[in-house]
Every structure is written in structure tokens, then in C-alpha cells.
């Protein structure tokens, strides 16, 4: 393993302070902007072959023939994998991979279950030859009618939603709640299938050495994935080395194993040569997960004072024909608003698509979109300001369970966001505001919320006699800034300047950094680093206190603090000793300590743990043409302790921009007859361009959380998209009087006076 693969940091970085809490610039920034950061597909081991998978062009049926001879006859083509010759796997791909891997399509049979499913893998000496070989296969099919939407998909009772959440949760007596309501608002909302479009499509370079394999690939869950690949290939987990120093975006899709990457690894073993596979943009639309469509219904009961008496949220969530990942959309209604009765329910819908999977705030994003519009509709029915309405229904404790929140500065978020935005004085009625150019102006808001998971993680910290330190964990920087933020936490725990800390990460052979997902990576891997650092300092302190030559000799009961490479006697700065001196007197070249990080189950059970926020949006709408433009976004978020405000703001902005995308642009245009996605490229699958992004602000609301974890760190990666979609939709209503309940909101929705729900 070349050292640069796990340690991109050698040059001093520009700093504006030190350690945690400071807005350090990215430690890997220079590597990235100078092109020296190597991504998976940048690797070219000697003798490498190129693999290209042929994807099905039908959604449902069977492959009846492939012209393998034509492909193999093409100059440069080395091998063609089909169900006829695909080597065996040690794990049945039609069975789930514990703990939460999906079934994958790896040429186990001739069955086609979605468009772009791999139906063959062509391996060649060049990318061009592999590409042409795949084109020459000329697949023939027997085609069955594709199930593409609510009208023809198969509905089923869900066993679970998201990653193991129950499909139905009830608090209180929902019928009694509606019976007690002074008014009930009910509406249906539709969110479309959205597909992963990270800048870097999935790729892998696989190289076998006997029964050991090295995988250069973007991966959000290194240890877990190494174990899963090992299970597929029948080798010990430690024989799989995944190197993933940089990802061009993950967003959930790179946390899951997928068929194309497994096939490329299989081909490398079969052919005894390294193999590279890089998906094309179009191939991202199928085998690597997506945000499944939802059809949601919200029924909101309120009393005369605008307080909720009942909240009923149902979601029909689409999944594939062969596996279950259901957007837990209705669960968005569980943690946020106080109501004596809450009922959330999910139903599944089988479509001939690839299996959906996690995509930035899975469930929370689509559920929040519907919930926040429904709340706005209820506020309108009550004649209340949307913010006042939310404050009237503020949950002091977790709805249903009554558990205290580990911390909840949501009131501050509302107050600071509203003040900064200038919410006061907003007219209640729609279509009351115009700008000087005559555009309709609307203001809307939404509440943001996201849970704070904790994943088991481990780390090692090594203090060296030269006064530097090495810290190690298999963390993942998918652009969020783990190289920087995790190093800040480690440096703080070690009492060292970050430039004295060498950070190894991004490789599966290191102590497990857990999963970079669920907005839990900084808290989880960070806590492991923090604990390892504290353990190292404790051992160092013990060395010093036992050393008669140390100024700290014999102070064991008082304790020390670590600062600037020295241990200081607590409350007495006059007595201190440097790490280098302690180690050299002890004749030690280094001192290493490890630690695990896990959440205390008793604390976790006793508290509800969430990040919160409030998003305020201004839109302008052309009154005749219906074109919508977001003109201002202000978000105020409370997420516990902030390690790096620069990176955190960037996460909030990214989430809020995705909110613009969700609200106004993103949709997979699926042909309802064939199941083919007709806009599977970045020209036609719209995500925002810079000119779509308005002036934005993200306010970091202070919040101390003594329970969420010893660092007090919550998650920031996904919360920005929640709240924002609803805020924009509500602003569109406020500008136009049109309630758009189908996303994305389009020009014709405004012209037609609101979209209709296309339920069967």
C-alpha cells in the first residue's frame, strides 16, 4: 500500500486557528485542485484489462440470445461473461447479504428484472474494444409487460422500511384524535424516482494475488464492504483490501454492493489479471440504487387553537420486484410535531426497476417534503402563520414516547432563521407580494430534522518520540471533509497541532471507521479517534507520573491536560512535560493506544436524538409564464457541537441545493410502457446549475448535547435537504396560491393551478 493512498496530507494547510471548532480548509484540497488526488478509476496496475457490462434494454423478461461469438471475435476482446460461463460465487446473489446488503444481479440466470441490469460482461485489452464487444452482443429477449407506476405495480404489505424500521407505528388513538379535531386537512403527495448522479460514477480496479484481492473503489463502508466481498468470493475478510482515499460523492449509493462491481472482481479472478470497470453515466440508472418513488397521504386534525389532535401519514413506497427497500417516508411524521395521536403506515409497491436504496436522507427527504406542505396546508386552514403553527405544535419531548430529547435547539433555529430571513410581517394570504418587476413573491418555511445514529468504530493513536502522532481509522471522505474534520478531532484529543498529526484513513485494513452514512460518520469515527487519543494521553501521563525525572512525577491523583504537545498538571501550568521528552526518557520510539466507540445503550434508550433546523425560502414566480426561481434560502441548524464550521456550512448548502433540485427539477422520466428512463444523462436529468442557486445562508445555531456522545457531535450531512423541499413548495403556494403536491413542481403545474395526484 503506497503511503500516499492512505495519507494525502503532507503539506501544511492554511489554518485559521487550531483543532476542533475551527474552520480549517480541507487538508486534501490542494491535492484535489491540482489533480493529484487519485480516484478509483485513476489506477492502472500493470496488465490491466477493461470491463464493460452490457445492460438490458428491457425491464422485465428473459434474455434469449447473446451473440457472444461476435463479441469475442472483435479484436482485443479477451472474455465475455454470461450466465453460461460465469464462475460461481460463495454467496447466493439472490439472498440478502447481512447486515443490510441487497440482492444483486450478477449473471445468475437469464432473467431480466430492470433496465440496465447487467446481462453480460465484456473484458478486453482496451476500453474501446470492451465497449464495442458489448455493443456486438445484440441481445434478444422475450419481453414481459413492465410494471412502471402505481397503476400497474403490485402493492404489498411491507415487512419493514428503510434499514429495518417497522412499517407501521402508532401513538395514541388516531380515530379519537380526528374525532376531537375542529378541522381536518387531507391531501396526497407524490415524489418521483430520483437517481444517483454523483460526479464520480461507480468504478473498481480489482487485482487478485492468490486468494487476496485489492480493490480500488469508491466506498462508504470499508470494513463492512470488505466482509461482504469476502463472503461473495469465499475468502477471509482480511484478504480483501479496499482502498478508497477519495470519492467523487457517495450520497448512499457507494455504501451498498452492486452487481457490476462484483462482476468485475470476479472477472479479474477468472482471468488472473487486474480488471477495471467504470460505469457510464447512463449505467448509473439501474443497478446502483436510487430514491424510490412515493405516493403519500397526510391527514392532519387540528383543534380551535391550531394544535394537532391527530397526524396520519401513509406512504406507498416503490421498490423492485425482487428486493425490499422502501422509503420510510411516513416516519418523517414521528419525531417532529406534538400530537396526542400519530399513525404512520407504509405499503410497498413492486416495480420493474433496480432496487432503490439510500440516497441522501432516505425517507426523511421525501417524507419531509410531504409533511411540511401538509403542515402548511393545515396552518392555512387554521388561518395561522406557518411558523406560529409549528411553534404551537412544538414537541417538548419525543412525540408518542415522551422521551426527552438529548438536546433540541429548534426554537432557536426558528427564531434565528426567521429573524435573518425577515419572516415577520409575512402576509397570511397567497399572491399578496410582488417585487418591483412585477414577479409574484412567496415566502415559505419548513422544519428540518434528522436522526443521530452511531456506528461502531475503532481507531488507533500513536504518539511518536519526535513530537508527532499517527492516527488511524478507515474513515471515508466522500467530499464532506472527513480528512479534515476527523483529523481535527484527533489532534484535539492528542493536544497537538493538526499539522503534527499524520492521519491514515480510507483503507479497509485500518481499524474500522464504521460507515460514512446516516450523517453519523464524524460522530462515530470521530469518537473512536477521540477515545484512542485520550487513551494514548492517559498512557503517556502514566509514564510521566511514574518517571522521577518528569515534572509531573507523582501527580497521579491530580490528572493532566494535553496541550500543544505537552502534558500540563491540571490547574498548574508551571508543571509540564513534553511528549517527546516523556517518550525519549522512557526509551520509547512511540506509544500506541487503541479504542472503540459505541453509544451507551442506556443513554440511547433514554433519549431521542436528532439534529434540527428551520429553512426559509423565497421564490419568485412569473405570473403569466409560471416559471419559478428560488431567490433566497436561509437555513438555521442545530446539530450539537460543530467541529469545522466551514465544512458544516458546505454540507448544509449542499443539502439545501439538493432541496432546490428535489422541489423544482429532479425526476427520472420513465417510459410507462417499457420502464426505460428516457432522460438518463446530465443534459436531460436536471440538477441545479450555479445560476439556479440563489444567495444562501446557513446559520450554525449553538447547541450543547451532553448525551448524544461524549463529543457532543450530531450529524449534518443530510438534514439540509429536509425542510428545504417543503419550504420551497410552500413559498410557491404563497406566491401563486397553487398547492403543488407532485414533485418536481413544474411550469404546467402553476399554469394549470396545481398538479393532480395520479393515483390509481
Amino acid at each position: 500500500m503506497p503511503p500516499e493512498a492512505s495519507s494525502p496530507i503532507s503539506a501544511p494547510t492554511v489554518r485559521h486557528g487550531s483543532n476542533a471548532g475551527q474552520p480549517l480548509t480541507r487538508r486534501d484540497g490542494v491535492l484535489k485542485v491540482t489533480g493529484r488526488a487519485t480516484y478509483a478509476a485513476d489506477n492502472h496496475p500493470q496488465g490491466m484489462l477493461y470491463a464493460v457490462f452490457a445492460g438490458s434494454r428491457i425491464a422485465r423478461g428473459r434474455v434469449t440470445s447473446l451473440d457472444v461469438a461476435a463479441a469475442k471475435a472483435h479484436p482485443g476482446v479477451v472474455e465475455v461473461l454470461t450466465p453460461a460461463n460465469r464462475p460461481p460465487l460463495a454467496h447466493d446473489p439472490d439472498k440478502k447479504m447481512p447486515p443490510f446488503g441487497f440482492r444483486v444481479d450478477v449473471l445468475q440466470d437469464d432473467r431480466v428484472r430492470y433496465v440496465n441490469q447487467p446481462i453480460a460482461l465484456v473484458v478486453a485489452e482496451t476500453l474501446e474494444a470492451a465497449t464495442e464487444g458489448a455493443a456486438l452482443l445484440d441481445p434478444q429477449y422475450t419481453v414481459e409487460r413492465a410494471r412502471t407506476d402505481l397503476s400497474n405495480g403490485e402493492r404489498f404489505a411491507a415487512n419493514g422500511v428503510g434499514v429495518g424500521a417497522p412499517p407501521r407505528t402508532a401513538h395514541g388513538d388516531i380515530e379519537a384524535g380526528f374525532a376531537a379535531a375542529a378541522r381536518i386537512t387531507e391531501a396526497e403527495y407524490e415524489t418521483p424516482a430520483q437517481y444517483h448522479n454523483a460526479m464520480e460514477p461507480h468504478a473498481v480496479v480489482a487485482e487478485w494475488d492468490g486468494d487476496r484481492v485489492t480493490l480500488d473503489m469508491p466506498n462508504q463502508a470499508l470494513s463492512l464492504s470488505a466482509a461482504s466481498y469476502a463472503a461473495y468470493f469465499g475468502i477471509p475478510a482480511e484478504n480483501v483490501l479496499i482502498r478508497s482515499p477519495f470519492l467523487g460523492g457517495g450520497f448512499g449509493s457507494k455504501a451498498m454492493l452492486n452487481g457490476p462491481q462484483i462482476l468485475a472482481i470476479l472477472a479479474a479472478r477468472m482471468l488472473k489479471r487486474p480488471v477495471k470497470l467504470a460505469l457510464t453515466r447512463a449505467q448509473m440508472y439501474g443497478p446502483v440504487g436510487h430514491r424510490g418513488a412515493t405516493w403519500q397521504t397526510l391527514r392532519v386534525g387540528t383543534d380551535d387553537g391550531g394544535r394537532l389532535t391527530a397526524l396520519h401519514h401513509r406512504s406507498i413506497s416503490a421498490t423492485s420486484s425482487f428486493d425490499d427497500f422502501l422509503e420510510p417516508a411516513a416516519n418523517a411524521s414521528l419525531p417532529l410535531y406534538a400530537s396526542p395521536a400519530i399513525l404512520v403506515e407504509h405499503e410497498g409497491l413492486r416495480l420493474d426497476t433496480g432496487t432503490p436504496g439510500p440516497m441522501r436522507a432516505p425517507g426523511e427527504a421525501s417524507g419531509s417534503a410531504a409533511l411540511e406542505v401538509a403542515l402548511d396546508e393545515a396552518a392555512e386552514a387554521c388561518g395561522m402563520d406557518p411558523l406560529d403553527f409549528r411553534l404551537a405544535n412544538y414537541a417538548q419531548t419525543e412525540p408518542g414516547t415522551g422521551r426527552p430529547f438529548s438536546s433540541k435547539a429548534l426554537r432557536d433555529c426558528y427564531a434565528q432563521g426567521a429573524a435573518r430571513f425577515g419572516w415577520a410581517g409575512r402576509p397570511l394570504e397567497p399572491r399578496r407580494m410582488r417585487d418591483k418587476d412585477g414577479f409574484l413573491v412567496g415566502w415559505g418555511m419548513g422544519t428540518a430534522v434528522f436522526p443521530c445514529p452511531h456506528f461502531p468504530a475503532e481507531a488507533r493513536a500513536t504518539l511518536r518520540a519526535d513530537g508527532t502522532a499517527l492516527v488511524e481509522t478507515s474513515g471515508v471522505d466522500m467530499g464532506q471533509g472527513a480528512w479534515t474534520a476527523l483529523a481535527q478531532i484527533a489532534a484535539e484529543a492528542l493536544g497537538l497541532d493538526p499539522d503534527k498529526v499524520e492521519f491514515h484513513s480510507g483503507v479497509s485494513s485500518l481499524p474500522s471507521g464504521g460507515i460514512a452514512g446516516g450523517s453519523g460518520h464524524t460522530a462515530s469515527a470521530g469518537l473512536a479517534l477521540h477515545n484512542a487519543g485520550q487513551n494514548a494521553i492517559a498512557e503517556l501521563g502514566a509514564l510521566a507520573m511514574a518517571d522521577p525525572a518528569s515534572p509531573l512525577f507523582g501527580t497521579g491523583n491530580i490528572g493532566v491536560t494535553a496541550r500543544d504537545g505537552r502534558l500540563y498538571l491540571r490547574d498548574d501550568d508551571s508543571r509540564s512535560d513534553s511528549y517527546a521528552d516523556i517518550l525519549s526518557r522512557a526509551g520509547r520510539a512511540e506509544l500506541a493506544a487503541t479504542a472503540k466507540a459505541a453509544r451507551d445503550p442506556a443513554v440511547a434508550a433514554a433519549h431521542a436524538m436528532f439534529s434540527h433546523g428551520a429553512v426559509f425560502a423565497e421564490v419568485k414566480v412569473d405570473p403569466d409564464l409560471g416559471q419559478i426561481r428560488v431567490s433566497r434560502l436561509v437555513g438555521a441548524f442545530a446539530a450539537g457541537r460543530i467541529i469545522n464550521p466551514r465544512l458544516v456550512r458546505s454540507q448544509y448548502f449542499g443539502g439545501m441545493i439538493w432541496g432546490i433540485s428535489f422541489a423544482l427539477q429532479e425526476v427520472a422520466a420513465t417510459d410507462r410502457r417499457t420502464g426505460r428512463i428516457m432522460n438518463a444523462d446530465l443534459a436531460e436529468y436536471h440538477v441545479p446549475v450555479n445560476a439556479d442557486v440563489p444567495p444562501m445562508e446557513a446559520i450554525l445555531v449553538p447547541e450543547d448535547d451532553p448525551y448524544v456522545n461524549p463529543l457532543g457531535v450530531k450529524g449534518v450531512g443530510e438534514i439540509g435537504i429536509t425542510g428545504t423541499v417543503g419550504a420551497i413548495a410552500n413559498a410557491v403556494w404563497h406566491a401563486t396560491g397553487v398547492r403543488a403536491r407532485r414533485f418536481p413542481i413544474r411550469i404546467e403545474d402553476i399554469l394549470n393551478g396545481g398538479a393532480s395526484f395520479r393515483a390509481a
Partner: protein
Amino acid sequence: MNRFDYIRPASVAEAIAAATEPGSAYLAAGTNQLDLMKVGVARPQRVVDISRLPGLDRIEWLADGGVRVGALVRNADLAYDSRFSQAFPGVAEALLSGASAQLRNAATVGGNLMQHTRCAYFHDLASACNRRAPGSGCDAREGENRLHAVLGWSEHCIATHPSDFCVPLAALDAVVEVESPAGRRDIALDALHRLPGSTPERETALAPGDLIVALRLPAEAAAFSAHSRYLKLRERTSYAFAVVSAAASLRIDGGVVTHARLALGGVAAKPWRARGAEALLAGARPAEAIFAEAAKLALAEAKPSGDNVFKIELARRIVRRALSLAGEGTPQVMPALPASPFATVPGAHHAA
């Protein structure tokens, strides 16, 4: 890989001789052609790279006040040519509303005229498409077609022409200079692109080997410079094709419209010149009522080809708006968001 001959001719004559062979395709910047080759829609046996042909990258002002633009002039260079944008501000605005800054820096004038439809079914080899594979059918007809044609379409094809640039060109009587084995001829821009009828595969009036060498705008077109606008509705602010668009140019003398030029984009397989509306406007005082009447007339023959009935009303409204904006006069400076209804929104600092 798909092997093809690559020829880089030294002269227009050599280019034409090479491209007259069956299976040939010209290549300029390739912003559309190479995409089509990558997905297999275009599989030429011979690529004739004209991007280095000498003498086709000039903007020449003619003695009568017209302009002749070489086919290899880049879209961005033309849009930012100050004399051109003053004489033909609506054309410059259309150019700057097209594609993205990066594409405009590469794409050529001739290539823009020759770009193919963005109909997804034309691009998808697994779909039936009469334009790509004559006689195979039209899967767009019952498919994802909310942005398809509402004018001039046939049962055989409902695709639209995606160009912004061509819309004001059609309105202003631009002429295309074509070189061919038989010599040079002029084709009116309005006659360059064909409606589908029963032969949608015949997309233009050009024959194999024909090479567009220049585009001319007549002197009369510059007489509209004080009242020329292009307006485009799109689903994101840059790098998106028009849902509908309109180019409106007026000559106003003594408070009366003496001449009007009007064309629509995104509604048909060609830029849609609305001559009836132009005639209605001539002699009228510029006012909302007459603009509304003109818009109604321009869309009189429109009918939905699918899930796109909204485009008809939207097109009427954008025609009214474009006429109204043209009536107000060409802005002193190019709007920060060219052709956008939000051109005036503060905070929109950059050309998109």
C-alpha cells in the same frame, strides 16, 4: 470499436468531395455529432473534419449593411461580437441562452443549424423512431412527450428542433450559403429545416455532401435592432433546452408597428415562423391587446401531440411577452440572464 475513416480536408472542395461518399458525416465542434456517435445513433463510416478549414471563421460586414457569418464562427464569439450584437440583439440573446458557456465556446454556427432533435426516442436505439430508422414507428407518440411538438407534427414524428439561435434567424429572414458539388446556392433559413410529414428522416433541405459555409443576415434585419428580443422558458437556468421560446422583432415608427418578425422555438421540428401574426401586427399600435391577438393567431393551428397541451397556452403567453418586451425596446446592455423572464432579478449576476 466502430472503425471509421477520419478525413481532414484542406479545402471546401476537398471536404465536399469526401463527404459526398455515402455514409459520410461532417464534424465541426462535435458538440452534438460526437454525442450521437457515442450512443450509436450516428455510426458514420467516414468523418470529414471541417473544423480546420480556412476562411470559414470570419464575420464579414457586407456593403449593404448585412452580415455574412462563416460557418465555423463559434457561438460565443458571434454573440460577444459587439457590432453583431448591436445590429442583431435578439440573435445574440438567443445564442447566449443556449446550452452552457462551455458548449457555446466550442459550438459553431453551422453546427448549431445542423443539430438534431433532442427527442429521447431518437436517442434511444431500443425505441422506434421514424426519424432515425424510417418506418420503425414513433415511440414518442405514446411516450414521455410533455416537451414535444404542438405545431407542424405528424403521426410519423412529433420531435422538436432544439436550437435557440435558429429562432430569431428564421424570423429575420436569414439565408444559409451552401456549397455543393454543383456549386454554391442560397437556402432561406426558414426552408432549411423540414417538417416531418411522412418522411421525418429527411431533416433538412441539404443533400449528401452539401456543406454550409456561411450564414447571412440581410441589412433589413438590422433595422429591427431597437426592438428585438428573444425569450425562452426552460426548466433550469442554464444548460436546458426551451420548453417554448419566442423571437420577436418590431420596427416602430411614429408609435406604429411598421414591420413585425416573429418566430417560435421548441414547438415544432423547425423554428416556427408566424407570418400571419406578423401581418396582423403591421400597422398596429403596439399594445397588449394586439399582441394577445397575434399570439392567438400564431398558435391557431396548434394541437397537442401528447401530454403537452400546456405548451400551447404557454407559447401564446411567451409570444405576448416577447412582443411586449420587444415593444419596450432592446435593453441597453445584454441581460445578466439572457432570454430569461428573470433577466431583471437582482442577484442574477452571471450569464448562465
